[in-house]
C-alpha cells in the first residue's frame, strides 16, 4: 500500500538530459523505481544512460505507459512542463524545480482543476515509499520500511524526520515533501487524508514552517477526522517578521503565519508538537505510545519516555 508511489509507478523525467535531472533519475532507478524514460524536445529519439528520450510527454506516455513524472525543467519553463504532463494524462506530477513565479503557478492551479492529475511541489524533494520506489531527490538510504507517514514543506527537514523515525526503528510508509512555495499542489491536509486512509500508515509526522495557513487547516482536519497519532514540528519560531527565510512561502506577514499560531492550532487538535527538530522522532514515538498504550521504538526496553 503506502501512498502515491509504489511498484506500479512508471516514471519519466522531464529535463532528463540536464545534470541534476540525469543524476537523480539514476538515483531513483537504483532505489528500485521503474524509470521508463525521459523528455527533451531537442534530443528526441536519442537515449541517455539506457533511458529513451522522447520529444514530448504525450509521446512518452504512448510509448511507455508512464504514469508519473519528475520535473527538473528550469523555472521559466517549468509551469508549461507541468501543464504538458497533465495534458498527456500523467497521474502524478512531481515538480522539483525551484523558483517558479507565482503567476505561472496560478495558471497551473487553474489548469489542474480541470484535470485528474495530482501535483506535488514545486520546490520540493519529492516522494519516497521506503524500500519500494522513490520519485525525487531525497537520499534513499536514510529510509527504512515501516509505519510512519511523513509530510513536510521543507526538504532537509523531511530528511531529518525520516532519519529520526528510522533511528527509532519505526520506519516510514511513505515520506512526502510538498514543497515550500506559496502556491503548490497537494497541501498537508491532502496528504494527511491519504495517510489516514492508508492501512500501512500507523502514525503521521507533519513538518511545517512559518507562512500561509496550511498547518492550521491541517490541524482542523486532524481534530475531527484523524484517529491515528500525529506529531509535528514547525520551523521558524525564531524568524523575524517580513523576512523571506529562503523559501518563497516562508515569510511572516503582519500577524499571520507565525509558528506560534500553527503550534497552538496543532496542540489544540491533540498533535504532539516537537519543540526542537531533534525531537521529531521521539515525539512520534511518544504519540504512538500514548495512543496504543505500548512503546514501539527500538529502545522499548529502556525507552527514555
Amino acid at each position, binding site marked *: 500500500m503506502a501512498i502515491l508511489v509504489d511498484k506500479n509507478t512508471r516514471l519519466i523525467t522531464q529535463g532528463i538530459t540536464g545534470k541534476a535531472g540525469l543524476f537523480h533519475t539514476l538515483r531513483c532507478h537504483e532505489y528500485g523505481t521503474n524509470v521508463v524514460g525521459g523528455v527533451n524536445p531537442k534530443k528526441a529519439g536519442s537515449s541517455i544512460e539506457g533511458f529513451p528520450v522522447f520529444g514530448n510527454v504525450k509521446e512518452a506516455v504512448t510509448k511507455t505507459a508512464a504514469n508519473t513524472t519528475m520535473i527538473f525543467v528550469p523555472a521559466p519553463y517549468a509551469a508549461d512542463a507541468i501543464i504538458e504532463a497533465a495534458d498527456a494524462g500523467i497521474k502524478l506530477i512531481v515538480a522539483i524545480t525551484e523558483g517558479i513565479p507565482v503567476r505561472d503557478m496560478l495558471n497551473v492551479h487553474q489548469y489542474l482543476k480541470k484535470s485528474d492529475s495530482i501535483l506535488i511541489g514545486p520546490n520540493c524533494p519529492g516522494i519516497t515509499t521506503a524500500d519500494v520506489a522513490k520519485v525525487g531527490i531525497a537520499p534513499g538510504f536514510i529510509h527504512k520500511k515501516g509505519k510512519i507517514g511523513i509530510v513536510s514543506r521543507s526538504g532537509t527537514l523531511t530528511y531529518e524526520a525520516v532519519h529520526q523515525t528510522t533511528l527509532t526503528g519505526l520506519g516510514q510508509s511513505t515520506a512526502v515533501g510538498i514543497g515550500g512555495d506559496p502556491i503548490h499542489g497537494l497541501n498537508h491536509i491532502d496528504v494527511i487524508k491519504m495517510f489516514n486512509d492508508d492501512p500501512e500508515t500507523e502514525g503521521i509526522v507533519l513538518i511545517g514552517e512559518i507562512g500561509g495557513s496550511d498547518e492550521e487547516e491541517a490541524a482542523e482536519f486532524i481534530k475531527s477526522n484523524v484517529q491515528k497519532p500525529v506529531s509535528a514540528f514547525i520551523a521558524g519560531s525564531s*524568524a523575524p517578521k517580513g523576512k523571506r527565510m529562503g523559501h518563497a512561502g516562508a515569510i511572516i506577514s503582519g500577524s499571520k503565519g507565525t509558528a506560534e499560531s500553527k503550534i497552538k492550532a496543532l496542540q489544540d487538535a491533540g498533535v504532539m508538537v516537537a519543540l526542537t527538530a531533534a525531537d521529531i522522532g521521539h515525539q512520534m514515538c511518544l504519540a504512538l505510545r500514548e495512543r496504543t498504550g505500548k512503546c514501539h521504538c527500538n529502545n522499548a526496553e529502556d525507552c527514555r519516555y
Partner: protein
Amino acid sequence: MKLLEYQSKALLRKAGLPVPDSIHVRKAGDVREALSKVSFTEGVVKAQAFTGGRGKAGGIKRYSTPEEATKFTSEIIGMQLVTHQTGPEGVSVHSVLLEKAGNALHEFYLAILLDRAKVSPLIMISPDGGVDIEEVAEKTPDRILRLYPEFGKSLSEDLKTKAADFLGLDNTLKEQLGDILQKLYNVYLKYDATLIEINPLAITDENKLELLDCKFDIDDNAVYRQKETGGDPDAEKNEAEIEASKFGMSYISLDGNIGCMVNGAGLAMATMDSIKHNGGEPANFLDVGGSATEEAVTKAFEIISSDSKVECILVNIFGGIMKCDTIANGIVAAVKSSGLKLPLVVRLEGTNVDIGKKIIDQSGLNIISANNLDDAARKSVSVTQK
C-alpha cells in the same frame, strides 16, 4: 523585490491610473531645475524608502517655495528614517519625490494581494484609509471588503459595483473606481506583483479619485522578467547578503552572536530555533543550498565571520546528495585557508557521516563535534556563554 514609491507610481501612471504629478530627485541641487519642469508650485517632499509611517518620522514635508523644497530635500536625503516598521537603526534615504499637494476630502484603502489559501489574487477595500490596515482588520473587521476576481477574466461589473457600494460612492466616482480597479488589476498581473497597496486612495476637492501612496512588491521568482519595473532586487540587502546570493546561498543577518551555516531553508530555520530554545541568539540565517561546493563553504565562512558580533559558528549539514566527507573536507580546507579563530561546532548527518566525522577529528583543528541538531545548539550556546 520591493519598488520605491516613485518607481511604483511611474508604472501606475503608465497604465493610465490617476496619480498626482510628481518628479523624482536625487540631490538637493537638482530641486530648482526639477520644479521648473512641473506645473505645480506647492507640494510635498517625500522620502523614498521602504517603510510606511514616513510622515510621522519626518520623511514627508510640505513646501510652498522652491527654496523650501530645496531645504527639505537636503534635510531628508541622507537621513536615517526611523519608523514603527523599521528597527531602531532605521532605513537610509537616497532620494525624494517632489509631488503636487492636493486636498483629500476622504481617504480609502485599496490593495490587491495574493490569497494563498484561496489560491487567487484578492482585492481588499476599506472606507478607512490613511491608517494602518492591520489595525482596521483587528478592531473593525466589517470595515474591510474582500473580493476575488474570476480567473483569467476582466473584473465583473458585479465586483466593481460591490466595491463602489461598500465605499458609498456616487455615480461619477463609481465609474472612476471601476476603471481604477481594472487598471490596477492589470498592473498587478502584468508586473508579477504579490502586493499593491494604495493607501490612501483619496477623493480630491475636484471630486476625483487619486492614488496618493503606493506599496508595490514583486514576486522574487519573477524578477528575471520584470527588469523594466526599475526595481533593484538587492536594494534591501546588505553587502554580505548580496555576496551570498552570488554563490546561490540565501543569507539574512540577525542580531545574535552564533553564526549558522546549514543546508536547506527549513533546517536553517530549525537550527536558529534550537539555538534560541537553548537560550542563545542566532547571528544569521544561512542556507548554503543543496549542492554547496567547497568554494561556497569557504565563502559562507568568510561571510559569517565578517560579522563582528559572531562569537561561535555552528555548522549543521544533513548530507543527502552532498556527501559528509566532501563537506568535512570543505570545512577543514576553509578553516585552514581563512585562519578562522572562532570556536566551531559541527553537526554532520547523512551520507558517509562516519568518514566525515573522522576527517574533522583528525584535522587537528579545534572543532567541537555534535551528535544532533539540539546537541549542536547547546554546545554553541555554552561556548558563547563561557
